[in-house]
């Protein structure tokens, strides 16, 4: 089933918006306190609401923004900050590659708009939904925009009033880890996936302990996906040879 067919069979624009928002709310819930925290830190580093807001609009990448604010505060050069941002965000290269499969044949203007919103969280939510089948690119785009607007507003709000609010209330710090746990579970479609996920988890922990920084994400993901792929291919060939 192509994405346009699904769109036509389900009650038009309001359905798209409602489905997209229903999928996006856990992301928004998790982004809100983190965005507020970034706003507070930015303000302490001398970046007022307008600069933080502009950064969120132009960069829209939580962990890279936190690192950039810390580096600015420490007096790092613009070149060092840009290079760090590139390294930290390079994992989205893999996510974008994986998204090319459900978005095959979609026109370029849509992809240019869509690519802006790719984050760890929106990728997890949209890939899980695409895989389940009842999802299309417009609903995925609503997820991007909802997450994106929440993030921008939260960072600006944080730089305005954030220091007045106590951090970590109601277990909110666990909102995003909780979401990643659920997304991971929803991705376990069979033995090859369980094997790949377990391998990635183990490799990522070991890699991060040995090599500081963010290279563990891309490194462990590529190694584990390759390992999972090779094991699956081997099992398939053995089955074919048997019968």
């Amino acid at each position: 089933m192509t994405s346009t067919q699904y769109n036509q069979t389900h009650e038009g624009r309001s359905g798209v918006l409602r489905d997209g928002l229903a999928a996006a709310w856990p992301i928004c819930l998790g982004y809100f306190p983190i965005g507020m925290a970034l706003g507070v830190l930015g303000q302490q580093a001398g970046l007022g609401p307008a600069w933080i807001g502009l950064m969120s609009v132009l960069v829209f990448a939580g962990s890279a923004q936190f690192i950039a604010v810390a580096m600015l505060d420490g007096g790092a050069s613009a070149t060092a900050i840009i290079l760090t941002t590139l390294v930290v965000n390079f994992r989205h290269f893999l996510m974008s590659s994986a998204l090319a499969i459900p978005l095959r044949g979609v026109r370029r203007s849509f992809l240019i708009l869509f690519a802006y919103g790719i984050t760890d969280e929106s990728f997890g939510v949209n890939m899980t939904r695409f895989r389940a089948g009842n999802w299309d690119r417009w609903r995925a785009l609503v997820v991007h925009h909802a997450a994106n607007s929440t993030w921008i507003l939260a960072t600006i709000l944080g730089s305005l009033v954030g220091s007045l609010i106590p951090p970590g209330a109601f277990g909110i710090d666990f909102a995003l880890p909780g979401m990643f746990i659920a997304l991971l579970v929803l991705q376990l479609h069979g033995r090859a996936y369980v094997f790949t996920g377990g391998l990635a988890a183990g490799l990522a922990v070991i890699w991060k302990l040995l090599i500081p920084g963010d290279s563990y994400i891309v490194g462990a993901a590529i190694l584990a996906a390759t390992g999972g792929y090779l094991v699956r291919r081997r099992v398939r060939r053995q089955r074919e040879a048997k019968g």
Partner: protein
Amino acid sequence: MSFSTYLLLLLGMGAVTYLPRLLPLLLLSQRQLPRWLVDWLELIPVAILAALLAPSLLIDSHSNSFNLLRPEFWVAVPTFLFAVRSQSLGGTVLVGMGLFWLAEKLF
């Protein structure tokens, strides 16, 4: 930093964030991919989610040391089981938050 340096910094950060998100999508979505690449890319979501999650539960980011006693890990175990049973994204988020809130209160 001056006004124009800040602006150039943000534009540079924006470019290196956006391009890795755009280029694979633009290049790979317009052609028929070989079977092995599709099979490999199918395993990327689970690999990347596990690689993002596991260190955040098991490694103390301040000291960069492995620690099995972190509340994040012990809350993750029942949250994981709940996710397996319920298959619900929103429900799992709320259960995880509730358990983490309890864990912070009790320990």
